[in-house]
């Protein structure tokens, strides 16, 4: 068992750490102190492996308290102020927790202190998911229609409207081709013509004048030819080297 002591002048802050300690079977709480003076006594009376130490406390602050200790146990600073962190590193503390302390972060500090690998640190809830596909919405009549960027083959403009071609559908929406171009990531889509945008991934063959996507021939406009050829050559170079 790892014997822990909490030193914090705020009862609510002690509550949180007490609860967290109780969640981890290998940790045992042996005492709580509201100030540094009490902590001196507690440390003399019993062996402590791990100290949760608040920095800003009345009378003697956590930093000075720690400096005054001859054989300090492992220390994790707990504080509402991140600017003390630097001094913490000088004092060789294990970790530095900024309040309010999330449980995941607390776990990480414990793992760091004792190099645990069995205590699984719950990963931070990451909302971004790169596997979630990139998409846009287009209005088609009364409906908003979701289109995955990965499904788009090519886009053709007709006056005030554009047609978006996917293997499953042909979507017609009122928007200019230039603004559709602005919506799409430029590394994945290329304007080949005044009236056409093509998904680079979906190109199966090309010449100077035409390229083929899904068995459809798409013209390469004079103005766009240089850009398109640069992109395609670069891509085929890239493929060769892999």
């Amino acid at each position, binding site marked *: 068992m790892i014997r822990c002591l909490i030193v914090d002048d705020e009862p609510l802050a002690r509550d949180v750490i007490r609860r967290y300690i109780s969640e981890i079977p290998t940790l045992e709480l042996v005492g709580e102190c509201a100030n540094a003076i009490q902590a001196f006594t507690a440390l003399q009376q019993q062996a402590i492996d791990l100290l949760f130490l608040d920095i800003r406390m009345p009378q003697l602050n956590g930093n000075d308290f720690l400096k005054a200790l001859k054989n300090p146990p492992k220390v994790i600073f707990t504080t509402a102020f991140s600017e003390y962190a630097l001094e913490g590193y000088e004092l060789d503390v294990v970790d530095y927790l900024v309040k*309010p302390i*999330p449980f995941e972060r607390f776990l990480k500090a414990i793992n760091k202190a004792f190099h645990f690998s069995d205590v699984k640190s719950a990963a931070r809830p990451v909302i*971004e998911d790169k596997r979630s596909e990139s*998409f846009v919405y287009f209005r088609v009549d009364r409906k908003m229609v*979701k289109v995955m960027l990965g499904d788009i083959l090519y886009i053709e403009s007709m006056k005030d409207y554009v047609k978006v071609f996917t293997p499953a559908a042909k979507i017609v929406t009122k928007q200019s081709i230039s*603004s559709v171009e602005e919506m799409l990531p430029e590394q994945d889509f290329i304007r080949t013509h005044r009236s056409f945008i093509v998904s680079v991934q979906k190109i199966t063959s090309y010449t100077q004048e035409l390229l083929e996507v899904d068995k459809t021939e798409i013209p390469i406009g004079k103005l766009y030819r240089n850009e398109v050829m640069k992109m395609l050559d670069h891509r085929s170079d890239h493929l060769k080297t892999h």
Partner: protein
Amino acid sequence: MAAKLITGLSDILRFILYEGSNAVVPLSKELQMIRDYIDLEKVRYGNRLELHLDLPDDTEDLYITPLLLLPLVENSFKHGASSMLDQPWINMRVSLHNNRMQLKLVNGKASISQPLKSSGIGIQNVKTRLALLYPGKHEFNITNEEEVFILNMKIELEKKPKMAVVKNISPVVENLQKQV
């Protein structure tokens, strides 16, 4: 749930208080703050909002002026998501090519929207800051369509903060912050 929200909120406030006064901050921190902010907004909208977020994991040693991206993201939520009744959606992508950062922010908007001031104070401030802090090193482009709002921004970022530049810039930043 409440604990997570408070933690997220306090992370954002801490960033604004402590990092917000610096001339530049690591890009990783700015992006983390954006994640925290979006986490909060996600809770608000729940499943109603469709969101695709693509931020780089590795930001190398790039630095950026703090709180530049936040007003833009806030704007997407404010004018995009919150004013849309049927299907709010946001697609945000930040990509890096060497020291060039590219932001593409696309969101749906209400087609019959209330008369908007062409672009709000948030966006205007970002433009002013770009002009002052990244002169000749940025592109900023808004396409405002009937149903969709598209923002493209490119900035050449610094690898490491130059101390001299930092000193010159901070009064400007301070001034701007007073105005905001």
